[in-house]
């Protein structure tokens, strides 16, 4: 079953002094996310990621279109007990302690009173906040607040979790913790929809990514497919102080750094290249096919904004076809 079905959700804002100018924040978006999937919503600032999440949470209302979560319309009140949400740069009641806040959200989410306190303590332990549980949130660091935010999003064991830029503004340790938590959610079979502009996080975590730019979905792709796509080239790394002449004549692009040479050449020249190394008695470090990266895909989807809007491919992207 599809966990999230976004059916041509569209949002434009009226801006300007007379509210007369219409600014599209999200062009009709059609996207389906399967149950159990970790989906990364990628795009630069102002792309429309937060707008999409706010629409799904019912915080703003769509100009047109609808969406379904777990088969229910998003304005169906029953949806809310099945989902969790972490907003961008979350802010919480700072007069409460972490424990009180989580207990409050547990109450609002309908977590039964019996076992609620135990559940809160367990979750606090899981994100390493047991020691700070009684401290008022106004004394919390940004990283600690983010952990509280993640905890309130998953406290009631939702099936689908929405996270808006969960790693931004965190130090490397904090980012690592968030990554681990998302991995855990995956192993529990939850569906996770998270937005980010940090590609390495998306690459490490996501089953699929969608690229959004200027309110428009530019492409959707499976990360495994994207990064396993080879480009018909291999990269050979070996110990040497200069590039052997034999390699250059095979059409290799080589780079020397210290005593290591890094050469990229067409796949069909691989055996010939190894032969050159053997002849010159050079020690091989590694040989691997060159894979495309998420970064290339991302850049490629963002760049040709003008050429793409003029041509047909835009239609394909709208449908969310795998590209």
């Amino acid at each position, binding site marked *: 079953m599809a966990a999230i079905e976004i059916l041509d959700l569209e949002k434009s804002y009226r801006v300007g002094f007379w509210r007369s100018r219409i600014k599209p924040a999200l062009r009709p978006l059609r996207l389906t996310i399967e149950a159990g999937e970790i989906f990364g919503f990628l795009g630069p600032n102002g792309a429309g990621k937060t707008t999409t999440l706010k629409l799904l949470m019912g*915080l703003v209302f769509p100009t047109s279109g609808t969406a379904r979560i777990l088969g229910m319309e998003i304005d169906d009140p029953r949806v809310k007990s*099945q989902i969790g949400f*972490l907003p961008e740069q979350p802010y919480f009641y700072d007069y409460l302690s972490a424990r009180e806040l989580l207990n409050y959200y547990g109450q609002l989410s309908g977590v039964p009173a019996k076992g609620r306190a135990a559940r809160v303590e367990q979750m606090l332990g899981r994100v390493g906040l047991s020691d700070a549980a009684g401290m008022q949130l106004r004394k919390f660091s940004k990283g600690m607040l983010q952990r509280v935010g993640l905890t309130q999003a998953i406290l009631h064991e939702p099936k689908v979790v929405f996270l808006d830029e969960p790693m931004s503004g965190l130090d490397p340790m904090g980012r690592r913790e968030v990554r681990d938590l998302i991995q855990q959610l995956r192993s529990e079979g939850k569906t996770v929809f998270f937005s980010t502009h940090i590609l390495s996080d998306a690459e490490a975590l996501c089953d699929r990514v969608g690229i959004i730019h200027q309110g428009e979905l530019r492409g959707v792709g499976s990360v495994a497919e994207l990064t396993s796509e080879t480009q018909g080239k291999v990269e050979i790394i070996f110990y040497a102080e200069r590039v052997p002449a034999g390699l250059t004549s095979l059409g290799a692009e080589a780079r020397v750094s210290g005593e290591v040479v890094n050469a990229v050449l067409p796949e069909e020249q691989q055996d010939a290249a190894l032969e050159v190394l053997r002849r010159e008695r050079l020690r091989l470090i590694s040989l691997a096919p060159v894979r495309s990266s998420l970064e290339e895909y991302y850049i490629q989807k963002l760049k040709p904004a003008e050429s793409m809007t003029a041509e047909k491919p835009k239609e394909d992207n709208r449908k969310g076809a795998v590209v």
Partner: protein
Amino acid sequence: MSSDGMNSGGMKWRIGYIAFNTFREAVRDRVLYNLIAFALLLSGAAILVSQVSIDIERLVVVNLGLTAVSLFGVVIAIFIGIGLVSKEIDKRTLYTVLSRPVRRWEFVVGKFLGLTGTLVVNTLFMSFGVFLALLYVAHRFERMDGWVLVALYFIVLQFLIVCALALFFSSFSTPLMSAVFTFALFVVGSLAEDLRGFARIARGATGAVATAAAYLVPNFSALNVIGQVAHGDAIPARLILYNTAYALLYSAMAISGAVLIFQRRNLK
């Protein structure tokens, strides 16, 4: 399916949780510290008055005490009321609350009840102070002191309306404008009887406008019986009933207006 997703039992509890959290916020923001100022004011007045005269001690203490209860409360009602929902929008604490199974109207009603609850607790403390002061100047309670309780009850009804109005105005205007509107309505509403009197004698267009205004503004003057109880006059039971119904209806209407506006709002 989580057991008590959105059923009506769950709704009642959610409103209660939101109300309690609002109360807790007020207490932790030291709103009840106003009681210290109130206590100082009242004890100062009581001591002063007991040295000056013997006839009008009770009159002064009741008048001054109840007026202070009313003004302190109105100021709190306005200043917390205007931020009740708008602050949660600005600080975006609402994002996570509304992503829970909480309907928007439940949130508004919960906040309203939390603030009125805070004011009731505050008024209880103040009332205790007023009666202590009475005891201090008169050395005993009299039968007519019971009417002071009714006056205090009417003051709480005033708070209900003021909170609802502050909430209503803040659902579509800035906090400053909401405070100005609410306070202006409190002042005009306190003169409602005069306005009605004027409407009766005015003719033509002026009369029509005055009549409309006189019946539209909240009738705070009917809820102000401080003068009567200070003189020891009785309050008719009919007025108690009428005022109760009026205050509940008026605040319910203001809250409904706030909900209708808030329900359609895109949170920034």
